[in-house]
């Protein structure tokens, strides 16, 4: 360290002294530093080309920190420049430092120099030492480094290619991959492969191409793993030697020069290559301790093991297996390869295989060479293999022996499982199930079926071939001969060894209907049809469940299963069950007596939609409704339990549900409320699986004619009722009606006797008629006046009428009508009764038609004043009708009326004033009618009397006996009304 010397006493020259002291101090420091940081000397280099390691050593005294610089000589590029701490080696007295190059040291020349460092102070650089590369001009040829390198998986490797003098570098390929390269010198190029994966067996090529893409030089790289061992154990098979086993991973380095080398207890051995990781090595003597070492270029691995021989005994596989087979057991014998086993306690495992099933039997003992296998099936093929282990200090099982096969002996077969199906007569079938190979216990030769009646000692036997499992029987003869109605059916099986025990079923010969017990539904589950039943009290019998296709009725192929006593349920599964097929299940008791039917079921394995629609779908019109009827679906087509029917009406291509009938027994449905037209109906039955395709029927709905008739009748009835009501009301209100419609017409006051005039009425308009027409101020002058028809006209009219084939009587009467009447139809004049009355009053001019003059007044007359009319009024008593004095109109000479009411009102006959000048009833007119004279006379006499068109009443002459006879009908209704009113006249 430099010193700073200061003299505080020299005050006059203080600053000068201080400056000198500083300069001296700095000089001293500089001089001292140059003394410590010595320049490294005797720099030397040594290399390890495989590890690409450069060892640099130098002499630098006590210095411990150095700057180290490594440059690529040609390009003067710095490869390494760091300050490192290097202690002096006590042995050599030199500083030594190792540097590992990324590139192979041969790739290019390197320049190395060193200097000492003390803090920020450094010495001068040492002389530069150059490590010569292979790219010197003296080495002209193509070169590549490194050659034949072995590296672990995942490593990075840098390759360099030195180009031949005068040629141009192209590319470096790693396998098929063109690599990126860097230039290290004029002729040297490098590339680095990173994270390398496993190479090929023969190594991965790194190839250098020139600029013409010509292969010039290459190297091979092997990428693999160091050895890795596990599970190293040694054991003995022969009780003398040792076999050592272990697992070893594949190193991917398999060549002789780079493959793994093994030593066991320092003895080298060679393993043949195998992909199996399990390796083994044999040693002639049991050493007790073993060390296994595995070495390859990437590393080594070792494992050890130690054990006593008796603890590592793995017996070899038994040899030369033989057997002595019987029906139910067999003896298996074998031999051992080594004599030493004779004193070895062994445990052996015998694997017995029959029909694909394996069973293991374990045996033990010293010198074990034979075992007996029990519980074999007769006439069965077996195969057997054996392996053993040490009974004491069990280590592991030895290898299985080779398989040995044998066949057990045969004996008589088992009794067959039989059942009987009887039809509804004395015919039926006897079934038995084929014996399995194990049940047959030998080569089957046939079956024997015997029918015998116990009471009558009748017997019939059939011998059947071994492939027969059913026989048809007819018990008619036995039924007629048997007194106890019982037949015993027996089946025995025969093989080469003999006859089996018999299997029997007692058959009842009573022909009875099927048991009426209710049939339950059986549900199918994954385990089959699950059937349950109640156990009979105190019964110990077994059961038989029989099933068959429900659509079969005769000689049905049935199947059955026997159920042990005490069971109350069973699941029936069969490969023969088909979806959509109904099966009948029957539970029988199975005892020494004949089987008794206990319960019945029906079920489907899987319900489907019906395969066919309902049969015979018909549509019928009933009144305005439509009745749909259909037949049943055959059982075989139902394919499920019918749940009901859906009724559809089709409109175009669309079906509309009309009704859902949940009763599967429904066979009809009535569609109501439809109007006329064409309809199409579809009936679909459905099960739990859905609907069938449906049956369709069409119908044209016609109008209901009966109803029309009924409507007409009802209308008529209503009309009649109305008329009755009207009639009744009229009857009740007859006075009012009379007053309103038939007012009393004032009797004309006629001078003279009308009744005596018998001649035809010659009406001539007199200047002063005796008939005084009632004048009304509202009279319409436009109306035609009363026209008197001359006889000539009458005659002419009469001829014409005769041509017209018209009732001459009526015509005759009409000739006296007013012209107006002829020209206009008769029409009622009501409801205005006053008008009617007025018409009557105006009849002399207009409305009143003189069809004849009654000699007596009509019983019905209209009064002028409806309000003033009354039954007791006398026409002449009404002063209003008498205007104009005694010359008033009096055509209605009051006739003889029996009525008391009318009696007082009846006027006395007027004296006829003049035949020519007065109005005279045509009493002399004769009607061509077959009626008696009196009546005809009366009717004739009524003709010509003035009457109202509306009322159509005639003025009746005297002498009429009955009021009805006085009337001349102008219409049926008027007649009826007239009669009615007449009958009501008091």
């Amino acid at each position, binding site marked *: 360290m430099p010193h700073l010397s200061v003299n505080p006493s020299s005050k006059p020259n203080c600053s000068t002294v201080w400056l000198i002291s500083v300069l001296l101090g700095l000089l001293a420091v500089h001089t001292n530093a140059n003394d410590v940081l010595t320049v490294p000397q005797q720099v030397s280099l040594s290399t390890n080309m495989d590890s690409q390691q450069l060892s640099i050593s130098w002499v630098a005294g006590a210095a411990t920190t150095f700057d180290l610089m490594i440059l690529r000589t040609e390009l003067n590029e710095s490869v390494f420049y760091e300050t490192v701490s290097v202690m002096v080696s006590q042995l050599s007295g030199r500083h030594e430092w190792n540097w590992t190059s990324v590139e192979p040291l041969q790739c290019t020349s390197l320049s190395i120099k060193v200097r000492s460092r003390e803090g920020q102070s450094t010495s001068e650089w040492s002389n530069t030492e150059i490590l010569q590369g292979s790219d010197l001009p003296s080495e002209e040829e193509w070169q*590549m480094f490194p*050659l*034949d390198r072995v590296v672990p998986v995942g490593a990075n490797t840098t390759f360099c290619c030195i180009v031949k003098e005068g040629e141009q570098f192209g590319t470096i*390929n790693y*396998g*098929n991959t063109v690599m990126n390269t860097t230039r290290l010198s004029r002729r040297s190029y490098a590339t680095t492969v990173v994270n390398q994966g496993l190479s*090929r*067996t*023969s*190594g991965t*090529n790194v*190839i250098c191409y020139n600029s013409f893409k*010509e*292969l010039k*030089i*290459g*190297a*091979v790289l092997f990428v693999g793993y160091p050895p890795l061992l596990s599970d190293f154990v040694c054991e003995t098979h022969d009780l003398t030697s040792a076999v050592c086993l272990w697992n070893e991973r594949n190193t991917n380095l*398999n*060549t*002789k*020069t780079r*493959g793994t080398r093994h030593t066991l207890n320092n003895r080298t051995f060679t393993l043949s*290559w195998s*992909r199996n990781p399990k390796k083994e090595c044999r040693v002639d003597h049991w050493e007790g301790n073993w060390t296994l070492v595995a070495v390859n270029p990437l590393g080594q691995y070792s494992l050890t093991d130690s054990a006593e021989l008796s603890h590592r005994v793995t017996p070899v596989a038994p040899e030369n297996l033989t057997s002595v087979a019987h029906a139910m057991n067999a003896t298996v014998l074998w031999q051992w390869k080594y004599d030493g086993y004779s004193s070895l306690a062994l445990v052996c495992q015998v694997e017995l295989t029959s029909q694909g099933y394996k069973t293991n039997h374990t045996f033990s003992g010293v010198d074990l060479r034979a075992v007996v296998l029990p519980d074999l099936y007769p006439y069965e093929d077996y195969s057997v293999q054996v392996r053993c282990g040490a009974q004491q200090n069990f280590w592991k099982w030895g290898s299985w022996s080779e398989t040995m096969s044998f066949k057990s002996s045969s004996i008589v077969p088992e009794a067959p499982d039989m059942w009987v199906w009887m039809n509804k007569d004395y015919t039926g079938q006897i079934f038995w199930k084929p014996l399995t190979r194990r049940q047959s216990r030998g080569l089957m030769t046939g079956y024997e079926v015997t029918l015998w009646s116990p009471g009558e000692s009748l017997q019939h036997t059939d011998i059947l071939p071994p492939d027969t499992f059913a026989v048809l029987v007819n018990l008619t003869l036995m039924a007629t001969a048997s007194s106890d109605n019982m037949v015993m059916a027996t089946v025995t099986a025969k093989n080469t060894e003999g006859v089996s025990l018999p299997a029997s079923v007692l058959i009842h010969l009573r022909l009875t209907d099927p048991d009426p017990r209710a049939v339950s539904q059986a549900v199918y589950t994954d385990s089959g049809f699950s059937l349950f039943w109640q156990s009979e009290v105190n019964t110990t019998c077994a059961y038989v469940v029989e099933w068959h296709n429900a659509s079969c009725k005769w000689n049905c192929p049935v199947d059955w299963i026997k159920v042990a006593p005490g069971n109350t349920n069973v699941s029936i599964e069969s490969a023969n069950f088909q979806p959509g097929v109904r099966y009948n299940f029957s539970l029988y008791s199975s005892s020494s007596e004949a089987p008794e039917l206990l319960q019945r079921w029906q079920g489907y394995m899987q319900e489907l939609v019906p395969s066919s629609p309902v049969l015979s779908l018909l549509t019928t019109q009933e009144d305005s409704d439509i009745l749909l009827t259909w037949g049943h679906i055959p059982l075989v087509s139902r394919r499920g339990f019918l749940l009901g029917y859906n009724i559809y009406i089709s409109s175009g291509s669309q079906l509309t549900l009309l009704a859902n009938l949940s009763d599967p027994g429904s066979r009809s449905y009535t569609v109501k409320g439809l109007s006329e037209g064409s309809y199409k109906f579809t009936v679909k039955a459905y099960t739990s699986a859905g609907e069938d395709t449906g049956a369709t029927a069409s119908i044209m709905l016609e109008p209901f004619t009966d109803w029309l008739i009924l409507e007409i009748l009802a209308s008529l009835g209503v009309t009649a009722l109305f008329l009755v009501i009207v009639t009744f009301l009229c009857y009740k209100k007859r006075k009012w009606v009379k007053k309103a419609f038939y007012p009393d017409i004032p009797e004309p006051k006629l001078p003279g006797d009308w009744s005596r005039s018998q001649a035809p009425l010659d009406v001539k308009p007199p200047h002063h008629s005796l008939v005084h027409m009632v004048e009304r101020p509202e009279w319409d002058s436009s109306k035609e006046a009363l026209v008197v028809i001359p006889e000539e006209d009458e005659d002419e009219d009469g001829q014409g009428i005769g041509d017209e084939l018209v009732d001459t009587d009526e015509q005759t009467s009409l000739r006296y009508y007013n012209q107006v009447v002829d020209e206009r139809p008769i029409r009622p004049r009501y409801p205005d009764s006053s008008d009617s009355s007025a018409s009557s009053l105006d009849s002399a001019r207009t409305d009143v038609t003189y069809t004849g003059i009654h000699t007596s007044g009509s019983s019905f007359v209209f009064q002028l004043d409806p309000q003033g009319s009354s039954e007791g009024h006398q026409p002449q008593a009404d002063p209003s009708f008498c205007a104009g004095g005694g010359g008033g109109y009096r055509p209605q000479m009051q006739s003889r009326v029996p009525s008391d009411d009318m009696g007082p009102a009846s006027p006395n006959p007027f004296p006829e004033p003049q035949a020519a000048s007065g109005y005279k009833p045509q009493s002399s007119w004769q009607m061509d009618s077959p009626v008696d004279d009196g009546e005809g006379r009366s009717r004739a006499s009524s003709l010509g009397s003035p009457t109202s068109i509306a009322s159509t009443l005639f003025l009746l002459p005297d002498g009429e006996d009955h009021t009805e006879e006085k009337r001349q009908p102008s219409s049926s209704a008027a007649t009826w009304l007239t009669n009615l009113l007449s009958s009501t006249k008091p």
Partner: protein
Amino acid sequence: MAARRTRGMTGPDVSRSTVARAASIAEQLRYECSILLELFREKESFTADVLVDGRLVSVAPPSSQLDTRDKLWRLHSALMQCRSLLERAIAREEEELGGGKKGDYETQRKMVKDRLSYLLICTGELLKTAGGAALLTPSLEGLELDGPTALFELKLWVYRIFKEVDYWTKTAITTLDALPSVIAKERVRTSRVRTTRSTRR
């Protein structure tokens, strides 16, 4: 010259069947050689245009002055060198580059070696027929059988050997086709007769 001739060959009477069999084997060997080369290039990621210059087999240069026996002797000698080289190549390859599972390449390589041995038997019979069997003692002296030590150079050496086998197989086909066999003469004669008869018709 890699062989030593001890006695001159006098006549070209070789049987047609032996020549035909040899030619057939050579054809088969040529086909199998091409497959082997393809497998090798595929295994080592070599392109088809990898150049391997220089011959490994040394025999007398071809000359139109050589008679049939000399041609057969030259061919037989070259094929023997090929087989020696091939055997050595297989051994070196197994030692330095082999091991592990045997694949198509190894199978094909063995097939070529066996086929080459059959061809050698045939050419030996032809030489024997030509009267030169006892005279021919092909020498492997001077043959570079060790090969290079560097593995990549070793691979190129193996490839060159395969190419050499392929070359001499083709040469064998050419040589055998060019052999003026008795049968061939007879065939030519028969052909001439048929041509004459046809002309007369």
